[in-house]
């Protein structure tokens, strides 16, 4: 690998909108399956209400605007497998009126979908590199499509490490999947929680500690690593510092930014983050492009 090569740009797939179609109109989708993941988190599997075999192509890290009839829309990252575009999968946390309304919907109910929007993770561009995935809380959901794609083409990557931090053992998202991945010989999976009851035999501590402890055991080669980070902004900030300490440069670190969003088209102005719009310049940013902004208060 050429060490002087600049790190790759993030990836996106243009919106699947028909040319000339009004980008502000939600398309009806039917819920094929709902799954309670955690106390406050659930997954919806969707297919289009009309043309039900119309594939929904997306790049890992992209999001849609999901509409609960009469309640409104929220930006939700896609958490499914990009190789299976027949089903559109979202994992959603109940944090407000709209997400709670989505959480009450049953199989067969309809939702509206616009998208996909935004720039995703540099999964293809990371081929040839070691990949470190740092996820916190629900932040594992937007990274799961990237994990699917990397594991499907495992041979194209160097070492692959997944480090996941959750609030408590009861808050570990995709637990069974993490266990399955952990059972593979070709990736490292470490999970830590912020606090745990005494019967927990796993790790306790913050996710940044996994990183510092891991690399001393040569989990990845910092100068040949692409790091994908997703979680609460404060967690991403400290993960970025920890990655820097390990020798991973800002131009090799990607993170996903969250802001208020009403349209996802660059019209509503809500998602501005310094010079850009999170809906079209993000949500995934390369750290060197936004680092100065992360420490400015209330930007």
């Amino acid at each position, binding site marked *: 690998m050429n060490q002087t090569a600049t790190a790759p740009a993030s990836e996106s797939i243009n919106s699947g909108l028909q040319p000339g179609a009004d980008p502000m109109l939600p398309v009806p989708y039917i819920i094929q399956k709902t799954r309670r993941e955690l106390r406050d988190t659930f997954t919806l599997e969707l297919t289009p209400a009309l043309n039900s075999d119309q594939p929904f192509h997306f790049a890992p890290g992209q999001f849609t605007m999901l509409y609960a009839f009469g309640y409104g*829309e929220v930006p939700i990252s896609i958490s499914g497998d990009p190789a299976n575009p027949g089903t559109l999968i979202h994992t959603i946390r109940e944090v407000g009126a709209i997400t709670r309304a989505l959480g009450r919907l049953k199989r067969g109910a309809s939702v509206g979908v616009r998208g996909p929007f935004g720039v995703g993770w540099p999964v293809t561009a990371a081929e040839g590199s070691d990949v470190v995935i740092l996820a916190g809380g629900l932040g594992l959901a937007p990274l799961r499509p990237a994990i699917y794609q990397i594991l499907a083409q495992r041979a194209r990557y160097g070492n692959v490490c997944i480090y996941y931090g959750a609030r408590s053992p009861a808050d570990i998202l995709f637990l069974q999947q993490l266990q399955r991945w952990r059972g593979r010989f070709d990736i490292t999976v470490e999970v830590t929680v912020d606090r745990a009851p005494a019967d927990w035999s796993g790790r306790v501590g913050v996710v940044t500690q996994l990183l510092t402890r891991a690399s001393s055991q040569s989990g990845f080669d910092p100068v040949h690593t692409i790091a994908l980070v997703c979680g609460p902004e404060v967690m991403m900030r400290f993960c970025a510092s920890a990655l820097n300490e390990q020798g991973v440069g800002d131009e090799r670190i990607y993170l996903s930014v969250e802001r208020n969003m009403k349209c996802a088209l660059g*019209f509503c102005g809500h998602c*501005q983050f310094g010079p850009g719009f999170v809906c079209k310049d993000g949500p995934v940013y390369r750290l060197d492009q936004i680092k100065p902004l992360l420490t400015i*208060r*209330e930007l």
Partner: protein
Amino acid sequence: MLTDAGYAVIGPQISDGAIVYEPLESAADLPQGWIDEQAGGHYRLQQNTRPALFDYVVGPHSWKRYLFPPRQRLWQAERNDQGFQINTDQPATPRYAFIGVRSCEIKAMQIQDRVFNNGHFADPGYQTRRENAFIVAVNCARPGGTCFCVSMDSGPKARQGFDLALTEILDDERHVFMVETGSDRGRDILAQLALTPADMTDINAASAVTQNAVKNMQKAMPDGVETLLKRNLEHPQWEAVAQRCLSCGNCTMVCPTCFCTTVEDSTDLSATVAERWRQWDSCFSVDFSYIHGGSIRREGYSRYRQWMTHKLAHWHDQFDSSGCVGCGRCVTWCPVGIDITEEARAIQDSEKEASA
């Protein structure tokens, strides 16, 4: 004549003590002989001795209220077996003719054009209204007390972006308009009028009109404001302005380029018909930056900073131009008279002091 050509004619007239843009029935509706006295937090109409039709400058309205309505139904949806059916029928959009558009306002429209067609997505309603709009510009004869268009390179003379442009020439001998054409549509309309070709005297007289506006303009935006603000995202002046700013959002409502919106979703009582409405929003509200659990911009300083740095600095990154046209509305209609040019100058002066 524009009415005959199928246009809904909108123009300046007096309402509630201000010049506003409303449907115009005849030239008699124009506020002839009125001028506006404007300063920070101050606007007053006065009867002038000159019987000019366009001696006032801009009021609280801008043309964006027609091209980008303050409240608009985006769609209606009705539940059915396949989930729901979206109905996008919009009331037929009139083809507007705007009379008395100032140079800064043309620039503001061109700025919003880039917002609502950003290369990825286009707002179809805006595109239609904008393409249909017939623009009759008027070159300014005097600056308002809060105008700074010269420093934003957006006036006072309209150079392009109009169908017709008028310069009002009013002296002891005559009261005439010099008219320039800017489009085929403009030429077609003009062809139906009996006109006298302008000679050099007329052209010089028209030029003197706008020169007068340039000469008397009192305010200016400091040079290099884009980089100045980007260097000073953290600066005590933001807190200083927050002490005065009421976060009322007036500046964003009167600004001819501010484009932020929110949406409102609702259903009927039986929850079978849902609607989405879009309405103007302001980055001065706390809710504007809300993400689950809290708002990003909780304090007044950060909301003022967002507005001003967006307008004057980050707009360049987003749309390749400043978002400010120097119309002065935000200064005039600020209840406490905060002056965007003075705030920029205060930051600039602090840098000068620091390096002195």
